[in-house]
């Protein structure tokens, strides 16, 4: 269970790991925009190249990232199938593909060249989007640094009375306890399995019922843990964000600013490449 730790932070020493988390949050948003700007073959080629470059910079084994994409296969197949069969265009590739049904109905399969391109672009977009965000955020930023950055970035919202600090603290605590709860779940499941519990066989209702011996102790211990944590925080005089100082103060460095500027330039480059459309340009 520990091997699929939430957030999948991958410890390494790379320029991306060392970057200010605030810069990384901004970069991620910009990078997502970039993936959606892409419209033609050249732009997507540049995008793919940038993803590979990001991976090399972050020193995360490509194998690991590809493995994390595996659960996406279902979504990818689904979207590409929809794109292939539903896109209407000008170049019909299958003029005479027909499937007869009972009662004389005939289903015409119409696959257009545009559909194939759309499917390819869609796959590339989703894959790069995921690689980019996971490298920029989850693989290289600890959850704590991330919420710290979010708190800082959302600070202007305090003016309209949004409890920014409390939201950040709650997020930090929630993230912090995900691996703990997963471990606890595994432990209780093992304990009940040791008493002969069977979570895998039987119908839906029986299976849901078989989870009760896991869920009840899990809830009980989660509540107990919450009370204990609250007591422990109060014992250390925690009373919200007012007047609280930071142990780790974030410093924006020249490199961080440069990275943001570079990605903006990259976005501009993509817009520029979009004008040179050979083969096919997405609408």
């Amino acid at each position, binding site marked *: 269970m520990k*091997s699929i730790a939430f957030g999948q932070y991958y410890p390494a020493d790379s320029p991306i790991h060392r970057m200010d988390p605030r810069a990384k949050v901004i970069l991620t948003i910009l990078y997502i925009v970039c993936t959606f700007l892409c419209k033609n073959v050249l732009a997507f080629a540049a995008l793919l190249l940038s993803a590979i470059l990001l991976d090399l910079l972050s020193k995360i084994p490509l194998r690991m990232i590809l493995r994390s994409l595996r659960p996406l296969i279902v979504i990818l197949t689904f979207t590409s199938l929809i794109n292939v069969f539903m896109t209407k265009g000008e170049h019909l590739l299958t003029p005479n593909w027909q499937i007869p049904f009972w009662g004389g109905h005939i289903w015409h399969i119409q696959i257009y060249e545009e559909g194939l391109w759309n499917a390819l672009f869609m796959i590339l977009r989703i894959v790069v989007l995921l690689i980019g965000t996971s490298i920029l955020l989850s693989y290289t930023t600890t959850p704590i640094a991330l919420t710290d950055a979010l708190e800082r970035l959302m600070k202007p919202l305090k003016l309209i009375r949004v409890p920014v600090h409390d939201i950040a603290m709650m997020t930090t605590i929630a993230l912090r306890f995900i691996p703990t709860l997963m471990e606890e779940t595994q432990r*209780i499941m*093992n*304990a009940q399995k*040791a*008493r*002969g519990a*069977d979570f895998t066989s039987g119908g839906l209702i029986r299976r849901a019922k078989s989870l009760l011996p896991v869920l009840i102790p899990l809830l*009980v211990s989660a509540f107990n843990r919450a009370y204990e944590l609250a007591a422990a925080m109060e014992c250390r005089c925690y009373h919200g964000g007012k007047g609280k100082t930071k142990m780790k103060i974030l410093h924006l460095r020249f490199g961080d600013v440069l990275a943001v500027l570079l990605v903006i330039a990259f976005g501009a480059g993509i817009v520029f490449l979009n004008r040179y459309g050979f083969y096919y340009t997405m609408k």
Partner: protein
Amino acid sequence: MDKIVLEQVSYVYGAGTPFEKKALDNVSLAIQANCITGVIGHTGSGKSTMMMLLNGLSAPTSGKVYLDGLDINASFKELLPEWLKLPEYANMRKSTAKKAIKTELAKRKKSLCFRVGLVMQYPEYQLFEETVYKDIAYGPKNMGLSAEEIKERVYEAIRFSGLDEAILQKSPFDLSGGQKRRVAIAGVIAMRPEVLVLDEPAAGLDPRGREQIFEEVCRYQKATGSTVIMVSHSMEDMAEYCRNMIVLANGKVVANGSCQEVFSNVSMLEETGLDIPQITQLTRLLQARGLALPGDIYTVDRAVAVLKDLYRTEKGND
């Protein structure tokens, strides 16, 4: 006789990730039947991992675990050729025999949990039912026993635990920490396992609570003649309740034998960073001061008896 045998067992956590950790490294050992065996070692020495391997909850990365001489993780493919030669399957048609073997194997895998009862660390967190009775009955119910048989087992288990029968109708969440723990252990005992495995059964309890837990385990062991394996890091508990001891350090077995054998090897224990029981340390200090004491004192009871004897003889001499 050996109840459980581990043969070159290794276990690796998170293989192929940056968090890879070898918890057990080529461990081979045998655990004697009909007695209590203690497993001792520091945190991270692989004790808990080893316990999980004993009832098939997890399978070793490499190596074999035998219960009564049978490999508990043997796959269908490995067993098939041998089993087809057995008299009960030899006369069947091959496809029928295969199916029968498959069901038999699944049944065996499932019954393994009932034969080797595992009490995990802090077992009180597994309690979930409305009443103590129902919670203890959970294991026997999963075994598919009749209501009468279940009732008998629950009452038997609560007797072993030394708790009052009135507790059966209470909610497990209303009990004290020590009581909860004893109920949780009773929940495993109710399955009448041939092998009872306990991972740190007394952790975090006061001395009286510890004693009650160990008494429950000893009562069960004596009454049923089952094999008990107990993890602890308290040398005193080991000396008092176990016949044999296994010392683990960094996933390896550094000592394995009777308590006397292990405790007499002081230098080895010090190397692994473990202490000898306090009472043994005290006898050693007394010996150094010239008191004629035997070297094999590991429990307070024995120390008291020896010192009393000594006192009487000295008095007689005067």
